[in-house]
């Protein structure tokens, strides 16, 4: 029984450990295929593409920690995108844009509050509730903008694309703020409540944790983060499309799980999921740089994801066999 290297301890105490390995691995492969990856221009152009998914994943990660799931986030992204693209327009002023950015954030919070109301106060099951509201939101986005079009002023879009304070991409600052905010939040009473509710809601209730309020809040946070993601992706693309958020929902869930947040709730953090989101986006890059035949793309990507998900389990199995 003399084991200096304690794997279980490592995995449970530092949930970021495994996502970090995956991230380093995918960066290494990407660097091999794209030697100029660390050029500032390349980093910036990569990070601005990754940022919307990162923002969305952070919201999803918090919902997962709180023991829920939010499959309506893609719909919220689409609503925000269509609002900005139709109300601001290509020839709008920056003032108008910021005004609608504010409105978008409120819309996101409101959409999240609808989810939270049904799940926390009416006690419906999260997966089916957010599935139902995803139709509501995606339908509403399509109602606002039936055909792709519209847009935001080019100078506002460029602000997102080319701002590099201290020659570092904007995304780095956003990620830093997110992580600092998370470190603060998880040290507060609310942070403790969040993990308690996700771990076992009934037990948390017994110990006077305001379970309903916490459950409500995670969907509001998720809605807010989805609105931020919607704003980011609109500034990235510069145009409107009611289907823009569709594919992002499942990606945000996969990224959060690769990042070590479990479905059972009460486990994980935000740093891991951010790495998960970057890893997932890098995999997409790797596939396009590796010049894989288009027909093979879906299969290769899905296989990599399954292998990445299975790896911790496989390691555990081998370890237990030896012990």
């Amino acid at each position, binding site marked *: 029984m003399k084991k200096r290297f304690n794997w279980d301890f490592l995995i449970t105490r530092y949930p970021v450990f495994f996502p970090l390995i995956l991230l380093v691995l995918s960066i290494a492969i990407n660097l091999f295929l794209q030697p100029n990856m660390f050029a500032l221009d390349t980093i910036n152009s990569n990070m601005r593409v990754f940022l919307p998914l990162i923002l969305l994943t952070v919201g999803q990660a918090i919902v997962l920690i709180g023991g829920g*799931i939010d499959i309506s986030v893609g719909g919220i992204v689409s609503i925000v995108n269509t609002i900005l693209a139709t109300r601001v327009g290509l020839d709008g002023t920056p003032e108008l844009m910021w005004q609608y950015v504010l409105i978008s954030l409120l819309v996101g919070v409101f959409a999240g509050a609808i989810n939270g109301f*049904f799940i926390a106060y*009416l*006690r*419906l*099951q999260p*997966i*089916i*509730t957010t*599935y*139902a*509201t*995803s*139709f*509501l*939101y*995606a*339908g*509403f*986005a*399509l*109602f606002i903008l*039936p055909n792709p079009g519209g847009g935001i002023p080019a100078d506002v879009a460029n602000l997102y694309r080319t701002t590099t304070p201290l020659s570092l991409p904007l995304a780095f600052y956003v990620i830093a703020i997110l992580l600092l905010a998370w470190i603060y939040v998880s040290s507060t009473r609310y942070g403790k409540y969040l993990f308690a509710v996700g771990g076992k*809601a*009934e037990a948390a*209730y017994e110990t006077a944790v305001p*379970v*309903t309020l916490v459950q409500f809040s995670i969907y509001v946070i998720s809605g807010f983060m989805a609105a931020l993601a919607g704003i980011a992706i609109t500034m990235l693309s510069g145009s409107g499309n*009611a289907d823009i958020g569709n594919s992002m929902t*499942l990606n945000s*869930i*996969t990224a959060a*799980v690769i990042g070590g947040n*479990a*479905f*059972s709730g009460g486990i994980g953090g935000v740093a891991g999921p951010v790495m998960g989101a970057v890893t997932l986006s890098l995999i997409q890059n790797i596939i396009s740089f590796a010049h894989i035949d288009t*027909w*093979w*793309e*879906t*299969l*290769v*990507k*899905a*296989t990599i*994801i*399954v292998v990445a*998900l*299975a790896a*911790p*389990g*496989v390691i*555990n*199995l081998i370890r237990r066999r030896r012990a």
Partner: protein
Amino acid sequence: MKRFTITPPVAALILAIALFLLSGFLPNSYGSDIDVAMAQATNIVRLAVFLGVIAAGQTLVIISGSEGIDLSAGSVVTLTAILTYVYVSGQDDKVLVALLISLVVGALIGFLNGIGVTFLKISPFVMTLGMSGVVTGAIIVVNHGNVSGKVAPIMTRLIARPISQSIPIPGAIVIWLIFGVLMWLLLERTTFGKNLFAIGVNRITAKLSGVNVTWTNLATYSLAGALAGFGGFLLVGNTGVVLIQLGQPYLFPSIAAVAVGGTLLSGGKGSYWGTMAGAIVLTLITSLLTTMQMPDSVRRMVLGATLLILISIYGRQGALRQ
């Protein structure tokens, strides 16, 4: 005094009938013509068959608990539909083998899901989501976007056509009824069914009472895969053509059908009758919205709102305060 309760399957069925009767008032609906009304009702149930069969595996996996869900069902349906289509290529004598292939291929994919979920401890949601990607990817690689084949005449006759001249009920509905009875027997009258509910309620107590949790879980996912495979076989028999996106539109409705039918998404409680009723309700709502010629955006919103109302009525979990 005993509280008056309606079970979810009955509630869903009453709702379906009420909606259908109300739909008679729509401008381009059946009006006062009984024959047309019957034909329309039959048609809706016929369309519900495919959703219902695909949702059968989903029901099993969801009852098994521990966040059980099968997101690979849609891609398995597409895969077995394509396999059937290509293998049968219009010959009646190959149909039985094609059915066997569909079941085995589906079970194999389900088995892999089960391995990932049971042994590697991957959450069912992401495991089956990943598997769905792998299967879809494999379909794209193998057929390169175009397939040549043909459905056998006997499949069309048994699945899509009425059983006889005098009885205007399509074979699919008869198959579904038999299928429903078999599912009921499986869930309520076999050891496997009892074990399934047991592991759905609480895996630890189930294990302590002598249930082989690992095996039951593996069997559940394999069976769910096989049932999705059967769904693909039936579906291609009805449509007669295959598309790369044939099964995917059935995926989330299959989960919704299970939820509307009163099966707890947290596991341990549910029935296939409920899922059947849920499949009919969902198909009915979708086809009503199509009949009303609403734009796609309004249709999606109404579907979402209806689903929300339905689950608000009886999908609620117990209060925290016991």
